[in-house]
């Protein structure tokens, strides 16, 4: 049962995910996907629970989590900014965008701002090479043919949305 203190994390969802998957072969990655979707990050505690629940070594769980870019051990910001650095975007100046975003948000690639609002990431090709360079936010909002000048406006837009 979930603790009422407000500080503990409710693991009942995780337990259900594990319960449904127990005994199936090769289920680890799917469990990790579901767990990350629900909890936002695969913290050491969550990894321990998964290892125990599925009866596989913790080292294997940890090894798998750190191998794939998709999995993260620290929670991401509310708005995940992804800059495509595929070949087409790169030749059209994606690296300048990465620098400008890092500069404006004062985080490194892979990092999250201290207010927990933005995470900055680079991705491989998103398959929109004619719109290069492409920036996506939370995979929903798409900005095409972005120039460094537009960055302030993009960031400010989300800050305002938050303020409201």
């Amino acid at each position, binding site marked *: 049962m979930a603790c009422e203190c407000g500080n503990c994390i409710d693991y009942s969802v995780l337990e259900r995910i594990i319960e449904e998957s127990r005994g199936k072969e090769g289920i680890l990655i*799917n469990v990790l996907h579901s767990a990350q979707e629900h909890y936002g990050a695969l913290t050491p505690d969550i990894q321990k629970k998964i290892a125990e629940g599925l009866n596989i070594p913790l080292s*294997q769980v940890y090894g798998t989590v750190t*191998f794939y870019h998709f999995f993260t051990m620290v929670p991401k910001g509310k708005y995940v900014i992804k800059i495509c650095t595929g070949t087409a975007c790169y030749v059209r100046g994606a690296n300048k965008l990465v620098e400008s975003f890092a500069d404006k948000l004062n985080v490194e690639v892979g990092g999250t701002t201290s207010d927990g609002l933005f995470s900055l990431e680079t991705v491989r090709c998103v398959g*929109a090479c004619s719109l290069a360079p492409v920036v996506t936010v939370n995979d929903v909002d798409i900005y095409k043919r972005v120039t460094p000048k537009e960055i302030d406006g993009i960031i400010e837009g989300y800050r305002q949305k938050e303020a409201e």
Partner: protein
Amino acid sequence: MKFYRSHIILGMDTPSLLAGAKGVRDTLEKELKAKKIENEIRIVETGSLGYHGVSMIVYPEGVTYTGITASDVKELVEEHLIKGRPVRRLMAEDNSQKDICAGQQERLLDGQVRIVLKNAGSIDPENISEYIAKDGYMALGKVLAENTPKDVIDIVKDSELRGRGGAAFPTGKKWEFTYNTESCQKYVICNADEGEPGTFKDRLIMEGDPHALLEAMAICGYAIGADKGFIYVRGEYSLSIERVKKAIKDAEALNLLGKNILNSDFSFEIEVCLGGGAYVCGEETALIESIEGKRGEPRLKPPYPPVCGLFGKPTIVNNVETFANIPQIILNGGEWFKKLGVQGSAGTKVFTILGDINEKGLIEVPMGITLKEVFENIAKGTRSGKKVKFAHIGGSSGNIVPFKDFDIKLDLNTLASSDLTHGSGVILFVSEDIHINDYLKSIAKFFQHESCGKCTPCREGTFRIYQFMEKLNRNQAKKSDIAKMKDLCMVMKKASFCGLGQAAVNPFIDAMRHFEKEMMEGVKEGER
């Protein structure tokens, strides 16, 4: 059945969505309602129409519009749908000058032939009835009723279909190996972990015609004696995942997948596995490791998957495009397929064409077309008007072909004899304003990041190549560095554990062959 006077076929694949297809659809619905014609005109969402940007075809006229934005919708509705006057400025270039009834047919005359993409862009991929109406699942029914597994393998062998994932291994042979390996359990895996930058053909097949893939996997399962299939999809492909999952559910409801398919003894179920964003998982044994829930590091081969694959059992791993050919081969026979394409390289090939060109998008052409024909007739030259410098074919790990060699035929044998590869089926045209060193640096960075770290030549080699490209871009390289690079590339090609490291050096080797002089510009002043 309800009657509509017009059908609008709207491409709703991921690139179109990125370009704003959802906004166009919403505005379109709103406009139709505002004009009170929403009961006369039906919007059908489909997969890629093969154009870049938001595209739609209006039937019965068959007029294709491309590059539509939400602000164009009002004009389209008022002019075309109410007054019957097509809006010429938005029409696709290939039909704006011609008889407007010709529509999509005309586009096919550009030298394209559609087998794999037969249904993509003409049916609603989320409606199984539309697939069935286009002879869908007929091939599966046919093999279950008429053919033994051995017959099926013979048909596929006859067709001389070769794998479309990059290695071009004869599909029929692979199936036969698995058929001949005795085991209580076998598996069919579809490799849909499409991670090459610039490649999205598999995604568009899955989004445009998911049932063709399911049908082909079931046929494969019947042929080799497997009752379980996995589709390993790249985690970022959310629309593909959604559509494939829905397709599986719909097929199961009609008993086209699941237990005792069509009342036969054959049972087959398919599960979707999500990739975690690791490029190396496109390598078949790394992919198998990943499905087993482990780090996606490649295994030592042999034994190959047809003998010892997933969970140690015989396993077929085929690319999405390879599978998508199967139903048509079963229905039309191996001979028919062989006649398309050229000797030793049967059928068609799907390419995504990109870069500085006028017509970007997804094309399917018979094997044997030349690169020049693709560039001039289908891509219609460079968009910027500048001279084209080279084409990078087959994705990041593919080959760089300079303009002077554009006469090369794009079939497996010709390419192999020139030491080139189809790779993942992307052709990126680069014009002369891009410096080769800058271009190569972006590729070097990609591989340095994506090397899985298992073997030393690839892990250290990709890192050294990136360092070298950095130096070249800062004009800090030494002349001896180029010779060292050549050595390093040979070592990686020969000694890397899997295809990632072996192929990663291809563009660098090609660049040093064709553009050495330009690369030397990055060597320190006075040392050249």
